[in-house]
């Protein structure tokens, strides 16, 4: 009988990005937000892993992929405290913490059915009013969106 090891049984990344401390319930939303299902590179996804900090966490390891700030900011709406480890030659060369930007473009859907963004082919735009509580305000209809009403848009292939 093989030993059950409480370790992630995956080869270390040579070059790429590790996204760690994803609240486990948000894992698949993050996968979708980053459009990972459309990528060709090697991706390892861990779900419901034990975590000291979060209890259960998710983790994503993507080989040969490095994210720019815009892509990272898309994650912040869903998972504000994830950490990114940038790996080169098997070493962690940089650690980044996700920060919510001041504006969110094309990520969140407006909850107001009478907003122009829900009736016209155009990207949404939200201003972040309160980062802690994740309060957003639609740039167009000016209505405020509370955290519980946030709906993330599926990334469209344009």
């Amino acid at each position, binding site marked *: 009988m093989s030993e059950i090891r409480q370790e992630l049984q995956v080869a270390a990344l040579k070059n790429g990005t590790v996204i760690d401390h994803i609240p486990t319930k948000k894992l698949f939303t993050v996968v979708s937000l980053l459009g990972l299902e459309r990528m060709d590179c090697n991706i390892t996804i861990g779900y419901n892993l034990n975590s000291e900090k979060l209890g259960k966490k998710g983790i994503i390891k993507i080989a040969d992929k490095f994210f720019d700030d815009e892509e990272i900011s898309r994650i912040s709406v869903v998972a504000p405290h994830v950490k990114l480890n940038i790996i080169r030659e098997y070493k962690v060369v940089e650690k980044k913490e996700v920060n919510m930007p001041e504006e969110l473009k094309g990520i969140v859907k407006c909850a*107001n059915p*009478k*907003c*122009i*963004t829900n*009736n*016209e*082919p*155009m990207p949404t735009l939200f201003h972040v009013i309160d980062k802690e509580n994740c309060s957003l305000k*639609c*740039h*167009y*209809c*000016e*209505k*405020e969106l509370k955290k519980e009403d946030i709906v993330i848009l599926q990334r469209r292939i344009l």
Partner: protein
Amino acid sequence: MENRSLVTIAEHSKEKILYLLEMAKQFENNPNRKILDGKVIATLFFEPSTRTRLSFETAVNRLGGRIIGFSDASTTSSSKGETLKDTIMMVSNYADLIIMRHYLEGAARYASEIAPIPIINAGDGANQHPSQTMLDLYSIQKTQGTLENLNIFLVGDLKYGRTVHSLIMAMRHFNPTFHFIAPDELKMPEEYKIYCNEHNINYVEHTDFNEEIIADADILYMTRVQRERFTDLMEYERVKNVYILRNKMLEHTRPNLRILHPLPRVNEIAYDVDDNEKAYYFQQARNGLFARQAIICDVLGITLDDIKE
């Protein structure tokens, strides 16, 4: 190129507001001039609004400009499914300025971002109606001699009334004291009370509406309490006659008090008020002409100096 569009008055500085009011005053002295000679202005009303449209069109006509446009989206290509963007881009080929009213919130903001010509928001859904606020400010300034330190009473539907929300935001520069008088179901929403707190605007809330309460008012801004807005119709029946202004209520009010209403008025101002010298709602509508002339000129880059006679 600087975007001179007017989408909302909420971001206007104090100086800008006073500047536009000064322009409106020039136009009140003489509303008939040729400064828009050679200009074509489009009035695109995707949602009907006779009063606002006629006011804007008169403003253009009296300044020598020419008008194209429509007053109802059902007769246009919008009903064929044309996007707002395409309509705006198409009309931008013909006109120097677009004045638009739309039933969707944010439509004017969007148009101002994509159009190569300026946009004036004549009302976007339940969101903004900046020219109404400008004429309200003009009326207040004209009748009170100033905008500073006034007691402004807002009565009626404070929950859905976009004109009262906009007025609060525009008045933040002028140290007003607001009195909010409304039934519980239609009281001023929390977000505007928070706005007042953030901008050090004093306010008092009441549910009663009577002689004593309005005794110290400088401005009484009446709005209609609509049955359709009530989820509890028994509540509507209880309050429908409470927020009605009658002439005898005005006996002990200040001599400088003026009664404003964005119109149309139904029964919230009794007809016996019309002959009282404090009734100002029809002059208020007339001021819309001058306020709109000022707005139109400003977005076209015409300055106060250009129009001073």
